[in-house]
């Protein structure tokens, strides 16, 4: 048999070898991701199970129960929950107002553009903007005091607090909700409302039995995204409170600067706790996205 005859014969390709060579195309990406994402994360994972002498231990995870650390987690979770729910509800209402609320049509494009900007206007400049507005000498603070006679700082308010941080976070939270919910609200078909009206449903019944059940997975899913968005935020809180507020991201910052704890392994364990919570939120998000996809074409 000649080589030519061999070539001509239809030949079952060995799947294994093909598999090996095509996967090489992913190598640059995988090397990069491994070096700058996977390895650093694994370094923290391994380090979180070691003590100062380099011996393996679970002590760091046991130490997470220290009051300062549990308080930081609880405050972070509280801030994230509050801003996710408030940002979610108000963002939804705002998106609905410009899409189906009978407001002038051009408000819609304006709001969506502005939401794109505002959802990216986070970090240091955002914190500064709120200091200039609601700080001790802020624009709105002085306006309220001199024109309306209300001194909000005399009434116990301060922007450099947990409440203040929540107000600031909402600035990027609900634009994000608007951006994500707008397509979902657009997806509510006119026929559904007409059909329910034809069968005698009131507006409240339409919302209770038709619109909300359809939108609910998107609403909840986006709120979970907002939760993660605020849980992982560091720059805004650092600038606003000078790094003093006891939330997880700032606790890790202080640990990295060597101000507290003096135990690197414990710092790693705190970071791992954050990753675990973020992973949980993303898993719930993915699950809800699958449910939401049912109603999209």
């Amino acid at each position, binding site marked *: 048999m000649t080589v030519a005859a061999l070539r001509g014969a239809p030949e079952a390709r060995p799947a294994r070898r093909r598999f090996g060579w095509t996967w090489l195309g992913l190598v640059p990406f995988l090397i990069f991701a491994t*070096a700058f994402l996977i390895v650093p*994360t694994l370094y923290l994972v391994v380090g979180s199970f070691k003590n100062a002498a380099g011996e393996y231990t679970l002590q760091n995870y046991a130490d997470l129960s220290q009051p300062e650390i549990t308080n930081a987690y609880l405050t972070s979770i509280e801030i994230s929950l509050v801003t996710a729910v408030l940002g979610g509800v108000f963002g939804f209402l705002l998106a609905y*107002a410009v899409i189906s609320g009978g*407001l002038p049509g051009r408000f819609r494009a304006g709001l969506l553009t502005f939401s794109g900007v505002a959802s990216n206007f986070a970090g*240091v400049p955002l914190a500064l903007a709120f200091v*200039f507005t609601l700080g001790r000498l802020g624009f709105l603070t002085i306006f309220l005091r001199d024109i309306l006679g209300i001194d909000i700082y005399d009434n116990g308010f301060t922007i450099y607090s947990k409440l203040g941080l929540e107000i600031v976070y909402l600035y*990027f939270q609900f634009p994000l909700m608007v951006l994500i919910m707008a397509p979902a609200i657009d997806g509510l078909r006119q026929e559904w409302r007409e059909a329910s009206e034809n069968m005698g449903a009131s507006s409240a019944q339409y919302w209770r039995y038709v619109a909300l059940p359809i939108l609910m997975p998107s609403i909840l899913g986006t709120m979970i995204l907002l939760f*993660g968005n605020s849980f992982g935020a560091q720059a805004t809180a650092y600038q606003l409170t*000078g790094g003093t507020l006891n939330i997880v991201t700032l606790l890790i910052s202080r640990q990295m600067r060597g101000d507290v704890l003096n135990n690197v392994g414990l710092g790693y364990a705190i970071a791992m706790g954050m990753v675990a919570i*973020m992973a949980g939120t993303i898993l719930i998000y993915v699950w809800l996205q699958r449910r939401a996809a049912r109603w999209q074409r």
Partner: protein
Amino acid sequence: MRLTRLWWWIVFIVGFLYFFLPLLGTFEFSLGHPIGPVRATPTLDYYASVVGSTAFWSSLGYSFIIGVITIVVSIGLIMPTAFWVRLRIPRARPFVEFVTLLPFVIPPIVLVFGLISTYSHPPFPFTYTDIGSTALLVAAYVVLSFPYMYRAVDTGLQAIDIRSLTEAAQSMGAGWTRILLQVILPNVRVALLSGAFLTLAIVIGEFTIATFLARPAFGPYLSLLGQTKAYEPAAVSIISFGLTWLAMILIAYIGRGSRTRVAVTGAR
């Protein structure tokens, strides 16, 4: 009916005030806080002082260059990968997608913590040198760009018939580099440009990673200015807001006609 419309107007006005007042407050401060205790006359001096300072331009320039390098590296990694996955190994998609979404699970503060812990000692002492720290900064920003860059490119590739394009190019003798640069890239340029401007907007304002790597970037500069000066940071914030606005307008302009996508970029 009229009552419900009134209610939507109220919602809109509350939202508008909440969006608008912080900008107004910052702008008022940037003019020297004319309604403040001193009752100064409004002035543009603080803008002049900022624009005249070398620290402003050097930090902005540094962040801009870092942003451009990040965009090039990110596109160079993501585009061939997304292309290859679609063309040859579709079954690797869930895996690659999973890796590109990891930065959502690992917040910037944790990422930089890991990078510093890993690369601040032998065998890979990146942070010993300036160039090493800058490389680490770019690497971190590239990682942060994975989620939206991959999705943008992948959606762009979905819209074109890459198999036919590739086969046509190959039959005319094009190699892989030529196919990627001259056939595929022009077809996904809208997605790439949106991703690029988003990256630029994020990198220029980024604080957490830049500050822990001790880089002379724009975010740490503004942060320090905010702790040491009264009115200049307001002027810089307004400029920074203008830059974000510009990037978003460019994205909207480039993406007109195509279905708008939401870019979720993660925590800051």
